[in-house]
């Protein structure tokens, strides 16, 4: 019997942005760690210190509840440098000219590793990983980026101790997936990535277009490049909790869930909503809820605030960020979902998986090449706007309304069941489980 079969392997999971980091990139690491534990492995997570999340970037401590009890979490302090929000600690040079100081810090930080801000974590994280391995030998490293400084830890243990590793790239180190342009550091990243790929057990990407691009870029390593799609998290979304019948007298709720940033066409959404309401009495008391972090670090920028005020009488409500633990309730309170996200052929969006898990009608306005179409295309309750306009979106909202209203009919019930079944196959576990099983099968064979 192999050691793995006896007590599981010791997996070091490297994720600078692990819980309580509250960014969207935290859920895949949480799910991966949970799946590793479920498969019987001992997991140590290497992540940034709590002060980084409590003070510097913001965190959601409730996410710590989603870390399995058996998982050991090593928290290594991150020197905040240019992100340090405490003015008392700023040097005279910084306070005198923050831009000049920041430019100098940026320049020096990327000398050794091509990544702003996070490069400073490299020596510390590597030191901690080395000590972890010394005290409790590691069998496998899984490192997830971004930030890509996480990858350097995997390389360190591999070079010094021969530990195999898997790289999980949730974005692309080399490429701007929105524009398809190379990263500003592409020339310096290329040798790092080529070396990393040459030594890796496998490298994961979140969709086929990104994976295909990398296979073309590194044909000699194409065999180890794999797609491990994102998915929805059953721990945050109990699809069975959705009430089948709405309280009489309560208005319908259309919901958009996602970041409210400059790329979100909030005015288009609001105007389409206003127009749709004028066309159906069923929407008279309805609300359009925009649920999500507004702007950078939850600072409301003037535009969304102004739009919210302008359309308040139409039932537009900006709720702000809702902790992930309560997102299930957001969906449960919704009748129709609105999907309206910037993207590209290489951007799928993590939210689309949650949307299809709900079984609710989904209205969308998407670029023709947006990769979310691939996920939505088999969903039986998808109502895509025929054109990217106020009129087009309003029409789609009304079609979705018809879909919603027919739910009690026989074909409506079937459509709902089919939608739920479609979504059920797109959980994170559905993607992660076979990928991890393949990795371990390769290790112990």
């Amino acid at each position, binding site marked *: 019997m192999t050691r793995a079969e006896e007590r599981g392997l010791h997996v070091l999971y490297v994720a600078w942005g692990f819980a309580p980091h509250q960014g969207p990139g935290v859920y895949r690491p949480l799910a991966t760690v949970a799946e590793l534990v479920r498969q019987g492995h001992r997991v*140590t997570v290497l992540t940034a210190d709590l002060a980084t999340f409590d003070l510097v970037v913001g965190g959601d401590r409730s996410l710590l509840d989603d870390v399995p009890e058996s998982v050991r979490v090593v928290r*290594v*302090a991150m020197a905040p440098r240019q992100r340090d929000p405490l*003015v008392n600690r700023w040097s005279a040079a910084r306070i005198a000219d923050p831009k000049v100081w920041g430019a100098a810090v940026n320049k020096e930080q990327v000398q050794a590793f091509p990544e702003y801000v996070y490069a400073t974590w490299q*020596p510390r994280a590597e030191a901690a990983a080395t000590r972890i391995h010394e005290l409790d030998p590691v069998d496998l490293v899984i490192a997830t980026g971004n930030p890509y400084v996480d990858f350097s830890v995997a390389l360190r243990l591999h070079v*010094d101790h021969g530990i195999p590793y898997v790289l999980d790239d949730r974005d692309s180190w080399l490429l701007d997936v929105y524009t398809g342009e190379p990263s500003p550091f592409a020339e310096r990243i290329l040798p790092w990535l080529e070396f990393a790929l040459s030594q890796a057990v496998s490298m994961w990407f979140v969709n086929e277009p990104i994976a295909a691009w990398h296979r073309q870029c590194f044909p000699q390593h194409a065999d180890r490049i794999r797609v491990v799609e994102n998915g929805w998290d059953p721990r945050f979304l109990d699809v069975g909790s959705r009430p089948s019948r709405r309280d009489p007298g309560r208005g319908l709720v259309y919901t958009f869930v996602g970041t409210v940033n400059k790329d979100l066409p909030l005015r288009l959404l609001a105007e389409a909503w206003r127009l749709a309401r004028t066309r159906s009495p069923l929407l008279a008391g309805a609300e359009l809820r925009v649920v999500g972090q507004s702007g950078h670090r939850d*600072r409301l920028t003037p535009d969304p605030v102004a739009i919210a005020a302008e359309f308040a009488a139409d039932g537009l409500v900006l709720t702000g960020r809702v902790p992930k633990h309560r997102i299930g309730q957001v969906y449960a309170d919704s009748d129709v979902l609105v999907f309206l996200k910037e993207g590209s052929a290489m951007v799928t969006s993590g939210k689309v998986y949650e949307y299809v898990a709900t079984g609710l009608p989904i209205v969308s306005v998407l670029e023709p090449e947006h990769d979310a179409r691939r996920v939505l295309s088999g969903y039986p309750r998808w109502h895509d706007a025929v054109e990217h306009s106020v009129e087009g979106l309003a029409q789609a909202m009304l079609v979705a309304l018809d879909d919603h209203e027919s739910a009690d009919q026989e074909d409506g019930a079937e459509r709902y069941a089919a939608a739920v079944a479609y979504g059920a196959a797109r959980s994170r576990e559905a993607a992660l489980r076979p990928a991890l099983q393949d990795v371990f099968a390769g290790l112990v064979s």
Partner: protein
Amino acid sequence: MTSAVLASDAGEVWLVYLSCRRPEQATVAKVGLVEGARGSILTLVVDQDDSTIRLLEPQDLPPGELTEVGTGHVKQAAVTVGELLAQAAGPVVLAAVDRVAQLASWEAVKELDHVVVASAWDPAVRVLAMMAAGADVQEVLHPPGFSVALNVADAGIGPAGSQTLVTVDHGPASPDTPWLTVGDQALEVRTHGMSRWGVRAVAVRAGRSRRVIEDAPRQLLLGPANYAGQGGEWARAVREHAPGWTARNMHVVTPSAVLVFGADLPLTSVEWAEPGTRLDLAVELVVGATDIVVEAMRPLLAVRDGSDAANTTDQQRAREDVDALRASGRNVALLFHGSEVRRPRENARLTPWSPFYRQETRALTAALERKTEMVHEALAGFDGPVLVSTPDLLDHVPAAAWLPIVVGPASFLPTPPALTGRRPIVAHAPSSGWLKGSEWVDPVLQRMDREGLLTYRRLQNLPPSMVPSLLREVDVVVDQVVLGNPGVLAAQAMAAGRLVLAHLPERVRRRFPDPPPVVEATPATIESVLLSVIENPEHYSQIAARGVGFARKYHDGRMSARILTEALDS
């Protein structure tokens, strides 16, 4: 008093939103929503006289457009802000949300210990949350330093954290007392000569400071140079090959360093300069050490410089550390890597190919002359063990012992023999081209590459983790052809079975108990040697293959662990 605002009551946290603009409704709303503190919105306002600065709450602001408070008003604004904050009976968390507010606050709180200034509203709210969870102002501003051992121990891996007593300004002391005294199992800090910031940083560490206790009778610390990662490699060698010993290294490097080498405790020179960080370092690695190796005559702690600007290359500070650590009963050895102790004049005397004293290296030579003289001055009178990393340095430190370079296991991975392909691949990877003779090597190799005789790989600033892998892909490594030392890259190349070309004078070669399988090459012979390699690949392939055994004998860490521990036992 230029403000009508009332400061906070005792014990109550006062959360202040400070700006130069009239607050928007949304701002008023969010400040009003804060729980667990008294919230205020204050606006810096300049009067018609353009010099009187007042702090006003929203309801007191004059109607109409406010006169702009600019950077020219910062000095007065700082006085106004300082006067108000000084009256607060409890802690203050201040969100300075624009440039003038930040400049004024930064200046105002230099002498105030009860105020945290955040650069925006959100982090101010986060600070409030930290304080609600029990942190005080100084704990927010001066969190515990980075400790690898504790980070790992706190996750339940390895030995648990223990405690070391740190006293700060305890009892009388003369002004000549070092700011940091390392005792047997405790640390004593004196804050004279420290900035107010430094005093606060060490004060929050007073009492029982946490650390992990290693379970070994002999505990070695090496630092802070870690040139070419050797401090880390020697520490690992001792851990793996010296029973009864454990070893750690610390590394202080400039923030703009191009290469990151592995170290047990990596610090930037900016971090290290702060006395709080150096105290953390003393807690984590120094107080428990029985044996200490000071590298390159650089200070470990600078025990006589408690300022925020201690110099990490100050030889005199290093010597003071050495004397203080020896006085504390610890075994202390000195270790030199190369350029810091290699006197240019002596090098020029020993090899005609010396890179020093040439027209184009005059300034560099002069700088090294000064540096090495200071190192030798600081070394004078030291009667403990002295080690050097390459045998050529014995000409510069005659009383020293040779401590071989260590290369990691990745360099020893099995590799196909060198020089068995059709066209040899030749690499040159200087860390410092002028000391390696790159101006001689490059033209020759580039021309031979163009002529199709070989493939030249010029490597620069290669990340250390990639070096073993890349060496396996080449046949020949040209290390250096002028200086006369066998460096780390040469050892790595030998371990990988690659052919090494380098200039090693006969007197250096004789210092190896076995003849090193390194083919002699100088600027005058590099081309002919390479032609010979191309014409006689089988012969040179055999020499390359001998490198593996040579490196295994001298550079795999076993010999180094023995020499190092014996030196400290002597």
